[in-house]
């Protein structure tokens, strides 16, 4: 496993210039994700209407992996139904933690290198956990 596989160009790009970064106003759901071991912190704000994610943004600070993952997630989920979004969360979590073929992950496929760095998996999934928490419980979530 090489660093180039982990830090693919697209990850570095999203890490440096995250999309949908900032405060969302107004929003209907929010959650915070915190990884106490590396200090990664993400605040996720989501506006849901008619069971659909109209818009979502995130703020906070984190490593390249967690920032890129959050950034790509927001791009991917904007406009999706909550139901589809939750399915994608599960699919992504599985792709990060379980071996085997996880089908076409689109742009997210560039995060597949993370699986080879087990202690970075929490970084990649932090925003996704937060999203799930936001739309299901609307609460705070910590991933450790």
């Amino acid at each position: 496993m090489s660093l180039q596989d982990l830090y693919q160009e697209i990850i570095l790009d999203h890490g440096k210039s995250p999309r949908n970064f900032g405060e969302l106003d107004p929003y209907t759901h929010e959650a915070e994700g915190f990884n106490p071991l590396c200090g990664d912190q993400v605040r996720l704000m989501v506006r849901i209407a008619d069971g659909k994610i109209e818009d979502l943004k995130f703020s906070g600070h984190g490593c390249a992996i967690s920032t890129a993952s959050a950034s790509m997630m927001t791009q991917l989920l904007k406009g999706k139904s909550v139901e589809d979004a939750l399915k994608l969360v599960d699919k992504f979590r599985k792709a990060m933690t379980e071996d085997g073929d996880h089908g076409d992950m689109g742009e997210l496929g560039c995060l597949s290198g993370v699986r080879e760095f087990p202690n970075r998996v929490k970084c990649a999934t932090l925003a996704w956990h937060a999203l799930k928490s936001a739309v299901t419980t609307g609460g705070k979530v910590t991933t450790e």
Partner: protein
Amino acid sequence: MEPGTLDVSSTRAEFPALHQSVSGVPLTYLDNAATTQKPQSVIDSVDEFYEQDNANVHRGVHQLSQRATKAYEDARAALANWIGAASDAEVVFTKGCTEGLNLVAASWGGSNLQGNDTVLVSTMEHHSNIVPWQMTAERTGAKVEPIPITDAVELDLEWLAARLAKGGVKAVAVKSVCNVSGTVNPIKEVARLAHEHGALIVVDAAQGLAHQKVSVQDWDADFVAFTAHKAYGPMGIGALYGRKALLENMPPYQTGGGMVRGVTFEKTNFAEPPERFEAGTPNVAGAIGFATAIDFLERVGVEAMARHENCLAKLAEERLSEIPGLKIHGKAKHKAGIVSFTMTEAHPHDVGTVLDQYGVAVRTGHHCCMPLMARLGVPATTRASFACYNNTTDVENLFNAVIKVKELFG
């Protein structure tokens, strides 16, 4: 020639774990503040105990138990001697520094603190010297107040003196060496200030043991907590020094076998220190390994080690400072061999991953010092910490790997 006066290569040869490759390159182990590697002598002394003398202690009547008891008490004496305690009875074996600090906060704090009392805890403390005080404060109503630190990560002694003079302070909790910034705190001076105002000083010497010659009497410290695994000893063993007059008046912490005089369902009487504070079967093998680590500190010379480590840390700081966007945290006048830094381009977690791919083992994160991170205005740092076996090649490997970070993220 290596900096300092150590024969680094022969010292290095004593550590089996150093001689391995990770990611296809030789290991550069710079995570010593988390835990040091162990010399063969420490590993062997534990083995020998298990292979020859293994028995429970508490003065069993058979020979293995007598040997084990003697080895255990000899280890206590060796440690007491090394840290300059007035008597062996002032040394309580614990499972580590954290347990020692919990013991003090619960037993001394629990029986001596009240609603109007304050414990001053430095902003650079490790969670293990903060949270136990918060727990005791919750139980007793006492207050925990942070001692501010300067931008250089030094104690604000003026503030401390002024705050002590205001009264109500019962204890001052400080570390002797900071595990993030390397700051060597003026313990003797803090003890003098504290005592002048009737407060005790509780010293976290987790990093101190391997990086300075500790003398609890010279410090005039009241409690000092140690951990073996950060000073070439095994895991699962540490020690708490407590002034005799204090220990004698403290209630037990954990209870069970070995620390009682008599037990009935009506009444239980407790033994004298140090037994009073050592409930259950002690970690005899651990104590023996700890004593062997003390032998190692003495044989190689802890002051020579400290000088050597400081040279390496200074060199590392110099080299790293050449890198634009890299910031060293902690510019104390007196520093031990620990260097923390952040980079504008890369988060510490990414830095750590890249360094690991070049065989350089560092710690990234908050280092169990979240209030210090908040004070420094960073979520985390990357920390390189040096031990007696590190050399200038290790510094170069660190530098070169950081350059790779720069290249990747810059």
